[in-house]
């Protein structure tokens, strides 16, 4: 017996499934790595026939797209899996949803009909709730933010401190809800994905910088949607092409993956 494993019969991927899920409630405290482990185990419990990479240390073929950071809730998380047997997307949705803990909720599963999922996602729509802040106060800060050309903020990244421009990727920023309410301001923001990414926390750091807006309590961050920002300033649903194809074409059986 040698060190290398015998030539492995790796079952080929015959279908790719795109999964839209939400991260809610206390599970917003999970990190992306936590979610990966939880998801891989749920795949096994639900007996979804996920494909594995070949080689010495096989990995399930799961591609994650732009995960929300630890502490943020999200209604719009996406990933793509490759499977070795053609599956009914609706059945995968219900089985995976049942296998995942409450809070990781599978909203929709569609067969990938070509195109690249990451290419359809370049912008996020966020809602940030600031408890202990009056909406009028927030509005003043937002106006100052939007007037600035650039707002350099500091963040600690893996490779040390970096200065990011918090203003640059912000397409829209506003205060929503009752402006005369007290003690709770809700921000609505549309932020393009850049590298390194500017997160809602960085926008808040920018608000603090331009007008000393300092929320007394931790902000509640929620991603409402992700997608491609079209020329009219709207976010396109990244799964729309797959959904349209599924509705128009034959049932999703036996169509080989395009990638």
């Amino acid at each position, binding site marked *: 017996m040698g060190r290398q494993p015998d030539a492995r019969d790796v079952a080929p991927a015959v279908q790719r499934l795109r999964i839209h899920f939400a991260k809610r409630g206390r599970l917003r405290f999970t990190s992306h790595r936590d979610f990966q482990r939880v998801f891989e185990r749920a795949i*096994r*419990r639900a007996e979804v026939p996920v494909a594995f990479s070949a080689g010495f240390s*096989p990995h399930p073929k799961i591609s994650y797209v732009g995960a929300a950071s630890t502490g943020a809730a999200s209604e719009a998380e996406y990933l793509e899996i490759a499977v070795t047997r053609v599956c009914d997307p609706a059945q995968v949705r219900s089985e995976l949803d049942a296998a995942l*803990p409450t809070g990781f909720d599978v909203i929709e599963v569609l067969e990938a009909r070509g195109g690249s999922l990451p290419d359809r996602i370049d912008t996020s729509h966020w809602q940030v709730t600031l408890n202990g802040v009056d909406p009028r106060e927030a509005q003043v800060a937002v106006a100052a933010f939007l007037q600035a050309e650039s707002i350099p903020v500091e963040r600690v990244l893996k490779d040390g401190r970096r200065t990011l421009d918090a203003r640059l990727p912000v397409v829209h920023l506003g205060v929503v809800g009752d402006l005369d309410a007290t003690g709770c301001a809700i921000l609505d923001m549309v932020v393009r994905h850049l590298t390194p990414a500017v997160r809602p926390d960085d926008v808040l750091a920018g608000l603090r910088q331009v007008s000393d807006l300092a929320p007394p309590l931790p902000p509640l961050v929620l991603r409402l949607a992700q997608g491609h920002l079209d020329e009219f300033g709207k976010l396109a649903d990244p799964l729309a092409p797959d959904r349209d194809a599924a509705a128009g074409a034959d049932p999703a059986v036996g169509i080989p993956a395009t990638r």
Partner: protein
Amino acid sequence: MSVSKPVQYVGGELNSLVKDWAECDVRWCLMYPDAYEVGLPNQGVQILYEVLGELDGVLVERTYSVWPDLEALMREHGIPQFTVDAHRPVGAFDIFGVSFSTELGYTNMLNALDLAGIPTESANRTPEHPLVIAGGHAAFNPEPIADFIDAAVLGDGEQAVIAITHIVREWKREGSPGGRDEVLQRLARTGNIYVPRFYDVTYRSDGHIDAVAPNRAGIPARVSKHTLMDLDAWPYPKKPLVPLAETVHERFSVEIFRGCTRGCRFCQAGMITRPVRERSIDTIGAMVDAGLKASGFQEVGLLSLSSADHSEIGPLAKQLADRYEGTNTSLSLPSTRVDAFNVDLANEFSRNGRRSGLTFAPEGGSERMRKVINKMVTEEDLIRTVTTAYAQGWRRVKLYFMCGLPTETDDDVLQIADLARKVIQAGRTASGSRDIGCTVSIGGFVPKPHTPFQWAAQLDHATTDSRLLKLRDTIRTDRQYGKAIGFRYHDGKPGIVEGLLSRGDRRVGRIIKQVWLDGGRFDGWSEHFSFDRWMSAAAVALADQPVDVDWYTTRERDRSEVLPWDHLDSGLDKDWLWQDWQDSLSDVEVEDCRWTPCFDCGVCDTMGTDIQVGPTGRTLLPLTVV
């Protein structure tokens, strides 16, 4: 204002339980007194959690030690120690059960009690406070925490927690007559539950214990351990907890037997868990299947104190490997002895490809040392075993040793370097490759209660460290083999504190309290442990006593000494332990009673137990493969 890894506090693990508070009349909070990532996988807590959770009217939740960042926020905002399951305050439960597999969790227990709003001293608690009950291996000498706990359970916990539940339920239904004393008396009368407040310890002027005696009627003079017989009837965990956060063991573990009669003289676990009770091959097979389905884990660990000793380990390994072939499920055997047969087992387990490293534990560097500790492994055994391993494609072998064993000299430890050289030599010959390695991992020996070495002097930390450095230098300066030998060691200071807590008496409790007051937490973590804090706390706490840290650690005891745990009965006959201690000093070995006649260690006679081993000759039922 944020804490690191918040996911560890949110609960919501797969297979966790949240019952309705009002519909339950006995409520348990279980704690493993370490960080969540260490505590969550603990097998003991998971078993008791499930056993209790299955009982009607019983609520059970878990709590773990919070890191200092969260502790600071909790103290600032007045948030009490809470359970992860439903975030309820620990102080509201009926019973607070703390599992100690190591004594280094004692300060964490005090911190959790304090955060929970429960008085740290048992004597200051009122009927509204939970009963604080310790369990686990450290409970075989709970004297250092005698002032802080209300009771300790000796031995296997499955049936004990049920018995405690019944007693507490009965007492509550009667309207809690007689307060805490009454319910504790009822627990103490079972004979398996130790209630420190019902025993008085008297000391002689020289600091030695004079006597430990019950201070009221109806309390047994000695408390016996409880032994679970028939592991097949208790197939827990059935539904393992699957955490959201990353933890130290990410696998489904099944205990394939409990107890060990190899007779290694340093090993407290082997001494206090006798006799050997095997779980049968078909029960193990069914547990593995159900546990994987319920968890989605990718790895199965077959646990025990010496897993290759299961009477049907060969068929079990082969049949499990067959069953999971091609499913990306891996199998592991955490504790293995030096034996070529174990290489065959490891080959079977690594069929799916991962053939990284094998671990063996000769424990003693010289042949003489191994006779002293009764670890019957010859140099030829070891070389034959590693030769087989390297020949079959394994590239790294890890060897575990201890330093500071009784009668040890520098030379005994330096022989580890010779052994490692011979291992590399054999490996290069067997594999025809120079791309092989061996790692020597060595830690300080800590004498433990209820072992033949309970009388032994612990080696002081300075000598331990100097021996380890000599060994390191010998290995590093070896031109021919040095680069192929890795060396890992633990310095001697934490071992002295562990030794103090292991063989301490009630006076050591003052040191623990002082250390905690001085900020001591997470003593099992090198970045939090402070030897100086322990030593200065000991100087303060023992200032009016004729004893000091050395008296508890580096002092050899004589036969007549009353040991702090003498009133706690592990079943081992003290005369037999003494004889085994004397035998060790004259290099006399003792066999394993599973395949030789009984040598009268005393356990089966006094505990009414018997060895339960196979083979059953049964096979695993085939499973339908999806």
